[in-house]
């Protein structure tokens, strides 16, 4: 049963890729093959894992630390002022080729629990796509949505909401 299920979904995905024609997807689809070719990670930069207990830094001096990406209400497109944040995170991933991350999408408390799960999922995956377009292998990035379940600020005002609409990076493998 599981096999069939995989098959069915793979077919659907394949169809989407084939017929995604006029949608925004096209650009992303075009870029995907390049991403795949980069799969074997460079081997020379294994060191940071062993050394540097206080601050893990590569030769290039980039710290192993990710920044959170923030969103507008009910939106999952990347704001222009957040592009630098993702680019920074992409460069960290470049500098630490063995690192794998989980991107968790979150929402503010407004809106329904169910829709916010979908919105958080979309936010996490929009960031993932952005990183893939930058050249990071998608195999290193998993995604998850907690919807409105995990606010960083429990307040009920725009200040709190703005902090809660976010995609957070969590390191799952160093």
């Amino acid at each position, binding site marked *: 049963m599981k096999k069939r*299920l995989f098959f069915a979904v793979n077919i*659907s995905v394949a169809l*989407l890729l084939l017929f995604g024609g006029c949608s925004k997807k096209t650009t992303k689809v075009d870029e995907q093959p390049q991403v795949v070719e980069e799969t074997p990670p460079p081997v020379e930069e294994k060191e940071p894992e062993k050394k540097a207990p206080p601050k893990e830094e590569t030769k290039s001096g980039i710290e192993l630390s990710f920044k959170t990406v923030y969103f507008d209400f009910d939106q999952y497109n990347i704001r222009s002022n957040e592009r630098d944040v993702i680019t920074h995170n992409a460069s960290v991933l470049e500098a630490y080729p063995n690192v794998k991350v989980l991107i968790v999408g979150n929402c503010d408390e407004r809106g329904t629990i169910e*829709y916010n*799960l*979908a919105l958080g999922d*979309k936010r996490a995956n*929009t960031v993932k796509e952005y990183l893939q377009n930058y050249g990071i292998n998608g195999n290193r990035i998993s995604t998850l949505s907690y919807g409105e*379940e995990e606010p960083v600020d429990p307040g009920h005002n725009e200040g709190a909401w703005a902090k809660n609409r976010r995609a957070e990076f969590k390191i799952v493998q160093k």
Partner: protein
Amino acid sequence: MKRMIWMTMLLLLMPTYETKAQEDVYMKIQSGGFQPIRISIPMFSFIQPTDLSQDLHQIVVNDLELSGFFRIVSSEHQGSANSAENGEPGNPAAEVELEAQLALNSSKLMLSAQLKELPGQQTIFNKEFDSPLDKMRWLGHRLADEVVYYLVGERGIASSKIAFATGKKMKREIAIVDYDGHNLRKLTDTNALNISPTWSPQGDYLLFTSFISGNPDLVKMNMDSGKLNWIGERKGLHSAPAWSTERNRIAITFSANGNPDIYTMDPDGGNWLRLTQSPAIDSSPSWSPTGNQIAFTSDRSGNPQIYIMDAEGGNVRRLTFQGTYNDSPAWSPRGDRIAFVSREEGRFQIYTISVNGENLQQVTDGTGNNENPSWSPNGLKLAFASDRTGSWNIYVINWDGTHLRSVTDSGENVTPEWSPRMQLK
């Protein structure tokens, strides 16, 4: 004994609207000068000295009041007054009377009930019911539903339950409660996030989204054994399941490769079919009662709106055009209306709209945020979650916005889903 139908369903004033083109309408709520049936219910008798008959009486009275079809009048006035006109102004004469006798027979409750038309004492029904001693509430609901059936012409909903998620964010368990707020119990103890329970057509399973494994999976609980079965456990979001009675398929939001879309599957998790292809969010499916159509939320227009499509994904059309945030569609079991949540002045309210997109009506009055509407099995009431008191609780309201009452009153309770009419388990 002839079955008597006093009226064919005129509970709530409802503007008539053209629905003849809608195949999904199989029972239409009609407008009319509805007057509640005046019923007297003398205290039930009991062959042993105990307060059980009093408790049972209270359950039945409460059920009949909540049904909206009745006005409970004092039983003292029914004997002398020979017509409604002869009753006292504040306490008019009863039109029907319900009498019952309760007995306890080796830990079994035996109930004998008579429904009579007044005046004249003509018998409408004379019936016997029984239940285990610890299922007295169910016994009362059973009698109330029978009274509704004989006098109104369709089965009551007193035996129904509401499933929901209870607990603080990230740690919510699945719970159920009787429709009248009694018998609340948790069904899971997972220390994880579980939300959005939905019932199987017979009420013997609950489906819900569970983060037990860390991934938002689709889990099916057997209501007899409590056993959990994972029927959607691929990586990605499984949310907002809905189970079609007619089609015996489950619709769900599933996000493969980061794009939430509507899929359907068999109840065992096999035979997945993808229905939506848009690069936008498609979520929150709700079946029409015939199983031929699905209402869902999509932000393909730039913000979330309600759409309707055929059960195989074709013939998509937009239903809502008012406002910039409409979500959580719930198709009425009568087929003619869809309840949903709309954002208005920064807060979320429940609305209904007819399936042809006309006749938008507000249900909640603007107090607090109100989410996740779910219809009662007779399509006359809506359960929903609201934070109107400062914390989230489950409420029930008539679909026209009257008769609001709370079903839960403590803790954090969200994503309610009204059961079908239930058999005793």
